[in-house]
């Protein structure tokens, strides 16, 4: 699976494996059921006798690390690969092992419970701000159910991207990542401060004002559609109330049909790159990735295309 993704990526970039200097992979041991889950894919990603490092977390973090390797001047061209196979593991049971063993894990908390608490907090915030009791009356998308918002399925998949130094074509002009509090009771789950900080860093790096006027499309990796209004608020795209009423739309895209854990952000990035390639003029997209219970870790990338060939 991973080999096929890498092969397709190199073919797309018209490169051969010896032209790749270093590899960054993203995966998580417990989700793969292996100690050091990058061992199993060393051959598939072409890392034999090559520099490889693994970021445990969403693929966007690996991409950012790859970008920093290039910015450091020590490497010129880096292959970034992320994979996740949800079908092999009981991902919800595994997620319980994310919670600290001191206070939270023994209560049996899982990812889906954290998501459920988060969606409820968002609904309560909406109800308080508008006086409307039923979320159905507030939101735009008719498919959002009253219980938890539509949740995005998790699936299997691998993604690969090659990045290199340069100013032409599609440029990664800014990125940021951030970690929010771990204990669920320490966070206001109806907001996303971590995402706000991550986005601020990305805007600063790209030299953009905090306003959203220049960004044409947003590629979200969400677990539930209800996360979109507060998260869009966090990146400064709209107010929470506006988000409830207008999202998702053409500028804010959700991938409904299945996101592999840890490859989700990269999958969104590739979707963003494909759209930028087809767009005629100057164009800018925001890519979002996250991992951890209720989106504890947040990542934002800004892509810019001057409309030239890639």
């Amino acid at each position: 699976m991973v080999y096929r993704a890498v092969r397709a990526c190199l073919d797309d970039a018209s490169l051969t494996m010896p032209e790749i200097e270093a590899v960054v992979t993203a995966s998580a041991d417990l989700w793969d059921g292996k100690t050091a889950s990058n061992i199993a894919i060393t051959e598939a990603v072409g890392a034999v006798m090559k520099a490889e490092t693994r970021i445990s977390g969403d693929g966007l973090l690996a991409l950012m690390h790859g970008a920093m390797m290039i910015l450091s001047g020590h490497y010129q061209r880096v292959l970034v690969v992320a994979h996740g196979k949800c079908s092999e593991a009981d991902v919800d049971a595994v997620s319980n092992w994310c919670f600290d063993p001191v206070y939270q894990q023994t209560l049996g908390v899982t990812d889906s419970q954290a998501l459920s608490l988060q969606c409820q907090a968002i609904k309560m915030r909406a109800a308080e701000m508008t006086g409307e009791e039923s979320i159905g009356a507030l939101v735009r998308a008719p498919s959002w159910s009253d219980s938890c918002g539509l949740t995005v399925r998790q699936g299997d998949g691998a993604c690969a991207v090659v990045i290199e130094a340069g100013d032409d074509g599609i440029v990664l002009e800014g990125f940021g990542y951030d970690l929010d509090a771990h204990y669920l009771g320490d966070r206001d789950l109806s907001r996303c401060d971590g995402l706000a900080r991550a986005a601020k860093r990305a805007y600063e790096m790209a030299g953009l004002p905090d306003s959203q006027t220049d960004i044409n499309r947003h590629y979200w990796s969400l677990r539930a559609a209800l996360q979109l209004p507060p998260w869009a608020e966090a990146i400064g795209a709209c107010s929470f109330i506006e988000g409830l009423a207008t999202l998702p739309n053409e500028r804010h895209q959700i991938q409904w049909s299945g996101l592999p854990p840890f490859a989700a952000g990269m999958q969104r990035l590739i979707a963003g790159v494909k759209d930028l390639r087809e767009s005629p003029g100057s164009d800018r997209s925001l890519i979002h990735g996250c991992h951890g219970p209720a989106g504890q870790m947040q990542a934002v990338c800004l892509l810019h295309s001057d409309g030239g060939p890639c």
Partner: protein
Amino acid sequence: MKARPVAIVGTGQTRHRKARPDVHQGEMVQEAVNLALLDADLSWDDIDAIVLTNMELFEGRALPDLWCSEFAGGLGKPVMKVATGGTSGTSGAIAGLLQAASGLFDTVLVVGWEKHSEGSTQTGMSLTDPAWDRHIAAGAIGNFALSISQYVAERGVTGEQAAMVAVKARRNGALNPNAHVKDAGITVEKVLASPMLAEPVHLLDMCPQSDGAAALIVVGGDKTRRYKNPAWFRGSATRHDQPYIGDHDKRMVMMRTLRSAAQEVYRKVGIGDPFKEIDIAEIYEPVSYAELAWYEALGFCAEGDAGKLIESGATQIGGDLPVNPSGGVLCSNPVGATGVIRVAEAARQLHLKAGDYQVDGARRALVSGYGVYTWSDVLFFSAERP
């Protein structure tokens, strides 16, 4: 693009021990971070980004950074976790150094930890390929011994020569307050008389399993100015290899990853004769025999001369090229932190802060990291600004 110079200016380590019941994983991380901040005379606010490193299954955690980052001051900061098996610590250090060199961050904290006492490492290790390896899993020691048998057959090193490595390590460890295993009175006879684990490896030839954490502070740009003896990062190289033990022809003899990574680093920093031009080395030797094999792969001696090199005493403190003056992995081994400790000990030598095991005139230091799958990292630091 020219690399921005970066240096390690602070290090912190816990006292590595068999078990630390008084702290949870996060609190142990914090201990090391606090010491590193103190060493670099910085506060928590000065940290721009954090790299964490450890092994998830040894620890019994999924994505342990989600929990432990907060204790490293990571709330509201950019945090990443690097995990590459045995090389996790050195790979994490490389990641932190490159992130600082990218210019995006001025001050990067790298912290690695492991609490072996809480779980079962040998079983965790055997969670390899379920289709093949797991059924024949005999733990790390058996696999090491297999490779060692090839190395011994090829090079003719003796049990006494290997025991000398263990003696050197434990005597050095006795000088290091952080070391887990220390034994100033150890002898070659005692090593050879310790229980046989897997021929020819005796108990005292092996590294321990420890609880411990280690932290580094990397700075770049103007931030480096206020430090008197920064450990400047000169270059690094990483090599991974095929996953099955049998994929490598005589893997410990050849050790193609370490050989190739070292050559790349020597080329980058312009080293012709490593034995003469390096002042101190902190290398990752999980078992005494490995140190001998690594001498050859790192070019410290000609092939087949490793036994003579340890006999000569040149790699002891006070010798021409002291190797692992801190006591090395044979004295302390909290896996996720072990590579970070190697880097920290090399940096301390250049900071001239190594106390009783300070190597006189230490200006150029080599670090190596090693993973059971024969992965290798090599890093080079110097007292001279690049």
